[in-house]
């Protein structure tokens, strides 16, 4: 994939040098910090429960998950398209796929750093003499990274669809909410249609795939493939959209 590495490095450097990215990072770390203490106090000291809360069951986790990726991905294509840099990039000797993949991976790495604070709290507790369930923690973290990758891919689609960064962020936000809510809605329907929709919703249910394995400390190949496959599909869609835009113009 020609040019992938160069684009990834450029995007990653760009992300870590953007004030917005650091503002988001510090805000998320503050929120996580308050959450870990609150979860421990609220559960009477249940360490594994508290980390589970931070890596999947809390509302704040999902709020960060659906809002942060679009804010980071909005600039990847949309902003560059608005500023005219995208045209240069697409005429450079790199494939469209490499452009999308490089940008996406940079966002995922940034989000991985953000979620890494949770294991750091675990390490802190370990040093203080309270040992959390590291297997469960590691998989909870992996789950968070995979969900971030999926939502970022959806953000890339939104970014590719719009030339206005804010609109791209808003679209990405809506897409992410839809991805979470649609399976729940389908699950509540009855009858034959409901059952058919329910079966389809099972192929799209992010929450269940996260909760039944990663959050329980189990690594399930089907759940890993679920996240990778959907991420791949959205990245493919983003690539096609960018390609289509070029053809259209």
């Amino acid at each position: 994939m020609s040019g992938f590495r160069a684009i990834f490095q450029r995007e990653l450097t760009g992300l870590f040098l953007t004030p917005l990215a650091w503002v988001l990072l510090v805000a998320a770390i503050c929120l996580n910090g308050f959450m870990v203490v609150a979860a421990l106090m609220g559960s009477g000291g249940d360490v594994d429960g508290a980390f589970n809360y931070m890596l999947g069951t809390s509302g704040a986790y999902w709020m960060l998950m659906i809002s942060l990726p679009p804010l980071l991905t909005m600039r990847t294509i949309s902003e560059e398209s608005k500023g005219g840099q995208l045209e240069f990039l697409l005429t450079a000797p790199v494939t469209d796929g490499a452009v999308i993949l490089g940008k996406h991976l940079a966002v995922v790495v940034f989000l991985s750093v953000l979620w890494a604070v949770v294991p750091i709290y675990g390490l802190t507790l370990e040093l203080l003499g309270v040992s959390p369930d590291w297997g469960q923690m590691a998989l909870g973290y992996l789950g968070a990274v995979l969900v971030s990758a999926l939502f970022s891919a959806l953000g890339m689609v939104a970014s590719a669809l719009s030339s206005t960064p804010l609109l791209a962020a808003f679209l990405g936000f809506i897409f992410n909410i839809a991805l979470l809510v649609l399976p729940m809605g389908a699950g509540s329907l009855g009858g034959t249609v409901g059952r058919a929709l329910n079966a389809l919703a099972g192929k799209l249910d992010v929450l269940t795939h996260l909760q039944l394995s990663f959050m329980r400390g189990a690594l399930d190949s089907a759940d890993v493939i679920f996240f990778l496959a959907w991420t791949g599909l959205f990245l493919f869609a983003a690539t096609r959209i960018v390609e289509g835009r070029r053809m259209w113009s």
Partner: protein
Amino acid sequence: MKWIDPSLSPGRRRLYLGFSVTLISIAAVGLLYFVLNLSEEGRFRMRFDLSEVGRNTLDPTTADQLEKLEEPVTAHVFFRYENTVQSAAASEARSRMMDLLLVASSMNAGKFEIEVQDMEDLVSARSKMQELGAEDQSIVLDQGGRRAMLRLVPDICELDPTNAERTQWKVASFKGEQALVEGLLKVGTAERPRILFSSGHGERDPEGADALSMGEFARALAGDGFVVGVWDSGENGAIPQETTILAIVAPEDPFAPEEINYVRRYVDAGGRLLVIPGQGLFQGPGSMGDLLHDYGMLTQPGIACVPILDPDRGVMVVQDVACAAFFVGDNGVGLSATHPITKPIRDHLRKTRVSRSRSFERGQPPTGGTLLDLMVSPNRAQGRETWLDLPDDQGNYDQFPDIAEPRGAVRLAMAVEFPVGERANSEEADFDNLPERARIVGIACADFATNALFNYNRDFLLNSANWLAEREFNVRVRRYREERTMMDVTRGTEIVQLRLIAWWGLPGLFAAVGLFLAWRRRD
């Protein structure tokens, strides 16, 4: 899309573009669906439990049983929150059981499904419970119509009070995995045991809903995986070949000699019999007392009575109709400690209840057979002797302990097991699929299986049916672990240090790095 001819008109190019995008989108979604389906198939799926306590690992017995499932099993969950002093403990047990079901379901996608019933929707919940023969706070495992019910208490867990006032309760033992395996074994048995209720002699109605019918017993049997039917000798003639258990419950009209012969031939060939003699017809020709006599259970005249407490005077009194209705099993007394029918009831400190019960004397069991007392009335109640109330000259009972009436405990239920082929006049050729040992459970109380007493006697009756059908699954699996790491948040310095790091340390560090980079970039 470089294959689109640039020489085409813009309109055609757009058309081609739209067509190719649609085609590629459909192909991509189809491929995704195929990959997801493939990844969920058992042969391609891998699952590793990385939790330190093995939270996602079932006992090998359970895993093996799930693996061996030939048809999918659905676990219908009828759990709901109840606002009682046991709420917290019951919630914990329910949550642990749901976790266990989720693990079982994840390990066996497609083979083990969970269906949680919305208990807020009372109408549909009741209808579903009735359809499956389920009880409130239970799980019904269903495999193509073969069912097994797991009750929250005592099948899944035991709850114990933690204080003398019994205002706080805890989960004393969680046996969810064991209950699940036993349930799977029940539904996994290819043949569903068939229980036939005799009819045509004034027996209790197995479909009736009134207090003296036994519709609830029949429904509970269906819920436990039995096929329930009726045997009417007038219509069906001899007992059908595929009968697992024949139940004769409180007949008040005599059986014809030919009918008694059908039953004898069935039992002597290894058949299984549940017999409750009628209240009026308990002895004499054509009665069940007459039949049981041959197997060592001698039905006695008289009604078992115990003195009762008069709440107004605070003393034990007799000569009250209530003396003929009493509980058996206070602190386990009166129930056999070893027999599979009564041991679980005794272990769980449950009781049975009888009303106007006859009694048995011990006779001679068939050769090579074992005759055991299952249920015996109390010897004394609050220091006063119990007695067997005999009828007066007019056949009436006064519930008063006359001098001539026997005192002390009497046998209320018995079980006998004996090898076939030992009995004289046996005609085994009639039945070719029966076990090599015959089993009979005799219960002396005609009302024992009625809807009025079923709530008290459910365990005894279902255990009896399962013992008769040889469905005793004494599975032992390790305790499903749910240990969690706890931290003392009320004392000690850990939480203070964590708060410092979480609230100030890490945010401060990241803010400093961000500011440093911004400052460097400005330069």
